[in-house]
């Protein structure tokens, strides 16, 4: 037999086996569902859901469809993932750098934090932050105002709502400031390349981003007022805050535990990245007269990032997938709303679980693609 055929045959057999196994399961599921009088179909998505959800980013109540309930769950999952990723990254970078600090107290504290939080199961941490912290928080009527306007209570965090007038003028001024900064940066680079002079771009940028919006308040007719939460009595010992925005404690507990947990792994990625840059690189950079800030910004970080980004992408994916533990503490994410309540009310297990799986898959792949694009951008460009 010729070599080409020999190579192809095992692969053909593998494909055949996979197709057969998949076909067998599909066929089996079909027969079993038929026997039990369960019909298959996605038509239920347009039916009225008739259940309410605690917290939603879009307008939703029980008179909307199951599809809208799905969107509510999906958006809540994305919300908790995005906030979690931002906090985990900031905390992770700080702790990662702190672990390399020459200060004994700081690096030991950072090491303790990493070892402690990454070695306790996430579900336990979620329960801890929800139930232990919940019991420690005051009831609405006993809460003291933080900075006069925030109230952190057992029923959630109440913050003032922004009430804007001429919001668009304010946004235009903000955009103008950003455009101006970009133009100045490009100009500054040109000046540095041609004349070797450095312009104080950072300070100019800070100035612009404050001054332009400030002008919009003074002469653009923009005004901002706050709606401050007010205590409202429901019954003798039962109170809530009205007005302003309220963040449910479930969201806070979930974001907190996800961020604290994932930050430990990101911290290790950051530490590995920085330590992965050769000592000689820093010494060489210092020897050509760069100050420590410039060494970090121009020499160490660009190389460290290449080591940091790929494993950190994994952590972002983990965080997104771990957010499905929300169901344990009543945060209405995709799993709780769609693969929980909607599944129960319709009984469409195969349909709903398949949609949920596909959704998580798409979310993860989107994050991967985004991070791979960024990774390629900072990778060494071979010339």
């Amino acid at each position, binding site marked *: 037999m010729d070599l080409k055929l020999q190579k192809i045959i095992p692969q053909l057999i593998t494909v055949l086996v996979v197709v057969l196994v998949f076909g067998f399961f599909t066929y089996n599921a079909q027969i079993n*569902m038929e*026997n*039990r*009088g*369960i019909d298959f179909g996605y038509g239920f998505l347009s039916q009225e859901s*008739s*259940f*309410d*959800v*605690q917290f939603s980013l879009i307008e939703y*109540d*029980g008179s909307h469809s199951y599809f809208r309930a799905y969107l509510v769950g999906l958006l809540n999952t994305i919300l908790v993932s995005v906030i979690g990723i931002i906090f985990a990254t900031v905390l992770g970078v700080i702790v990662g750098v702190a672990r390399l600090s020459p200060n004994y107290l700081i690096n030991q504290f950072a090491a303790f934090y990493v070892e402690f939080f990454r070695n306790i199961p996430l579900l336990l941490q979620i329960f801890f932050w929800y*139930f232990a912290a*919940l*019991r420690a928080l005051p*009831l609405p009527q006993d809460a003291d105002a933080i900075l006069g306007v925030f109230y952190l209570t*057992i*029923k959630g965090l109440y913050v003032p709502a922004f009430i804007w007038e001429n919001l668009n003028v304010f946004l235009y001024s903000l955009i103008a400031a950003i455009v101006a900064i970009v133009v100045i940066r490009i100009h500054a680079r040109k000046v540095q390349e041609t004349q070797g002079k450095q312009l104080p771009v950072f300070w100019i940028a800070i100035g612009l981003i404050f001054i332009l919006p400030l002008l919009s308040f003074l002469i653009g007719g923009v005004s901002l007022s706050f709606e401050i939460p007010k205590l*409202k009595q*429901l*019954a*003798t*010992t*039962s109170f*809530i805050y*009205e007005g302003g925005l309220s963040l*449910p*404690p*479930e969201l806070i507990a979930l974001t907190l535990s996800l961020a604290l947990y994932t930050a430990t792994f990101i911290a290790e990625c950051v530490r590995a990245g920085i330590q992965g840059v050769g000592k000689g690189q820093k010494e060489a950079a210092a020897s050509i007269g760069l100050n420590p800030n410039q060494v970090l910004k121009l020499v160490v970080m660009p190389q460290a990032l290449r080591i940091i980004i790929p494993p950190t992408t994994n952590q972002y994916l983990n965080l997104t997938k771990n957010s499905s533990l929300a*169901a*344990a*503490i*009543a945060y*209405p994410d995709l799993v*709780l709303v769609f693969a*929980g*309540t909607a*599944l*129960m*009310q*319709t*009984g469409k*297990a195969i349909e709903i679980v398949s949609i949920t799986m596909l959704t998580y898959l798409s979310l993860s792949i989107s994050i991967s693609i985004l991070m791979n694009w960024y990774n390629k951008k900072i990778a060494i460009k071979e010339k």
Partner: protein
Amino acid sequence: MFKYLKQLTSLVAMVAVLFTFTTETMAAKKSKTLKNTQKKGFVRCGVSQGLPGFSNADAAGNWTGIDVDVCRAVAAAVLGDANKVKFTPLSAKERFTALTSGEIDILSRNTTWTLSRDADIGLTFVGVNFYDGQGFMVRKSSGITSTSQFKDGISACTNIGTTTELNMRDFFNSKGISYEPVAFEKADEVVAAYDAGRCDTYTTDKSGLAAQRTKMSNPDDHIVLPETVSKEPLGPVVRQGDSVWEDIVRWSLNAMIEAEEYGITSANADSMKTSDNPAVKRLVGAEGELGAAFGLDNEWSLRIIKQVGNYGESYKRNIADTGILPDRGPNELWTKGGILYVPPAR
């Protein structure tokens, strides 16, 4: 001579083969679930993750409750021993999948009988072992004594995947009150969150409220409001498509209720064999051939009564004596002012 002998043996063998074949198909005709249960030697029963009075495990892992007793009754009828039950604790979310996928054969987990569940998702409800209705629990200190005192913004803790979630919406909508639903996957977490003060009210079936109240850090601080906002007939469920098994479970429950009606208890069941009442004699297996229809012997119901007791005994043992709901309310026999009424076993 030998020739005949040879023919005779082959004939015997053929008859034997034919006979085993026919008994096989008879048993298969009877019920696949019954056959599997008898082969395994235990009844696979889905229960709650811990609801005192209905299905609750003690520290040693012994399950008790009126839902548990339904499974024990089936085990007594089918296998002759009420203890031959394997209990699988299930959340509200998992319960129907566990049943339709064949992980369990009876779901006896305070499950409300509704049209869509019965017709839609491959399940069959076999009866009602507890008539219930949804209610609300609040803290005594709140001063609320009626649902009419509920105000906009009230937060309500409950379970996901239950009829409660739907009824709650119907109730608050009809009253025009805006509310915050906080829905957990497990009952224990609902109780913990409500107990901590996360919610103003906790809503589920009234029996559930009464049972969960016993788990609170201070039960006397909470009251169940008098209003009942829905009908919740709770009962055991089986998979669609095995009518013999369905009948066995249905009549195991019915036998317990009818035994109470005729005053047959676990203590006097044997002596009732000589009763003058033919209905009583049928229930204790001294008359008629009732078991044959399910492919069981004639003492199936006697074993249920002797090993598990009648419905009244089960209620008293699990719900009244534990202080959950001493008053039987609608769950009293029809002859005593309740609505428990089962078709006659004859």
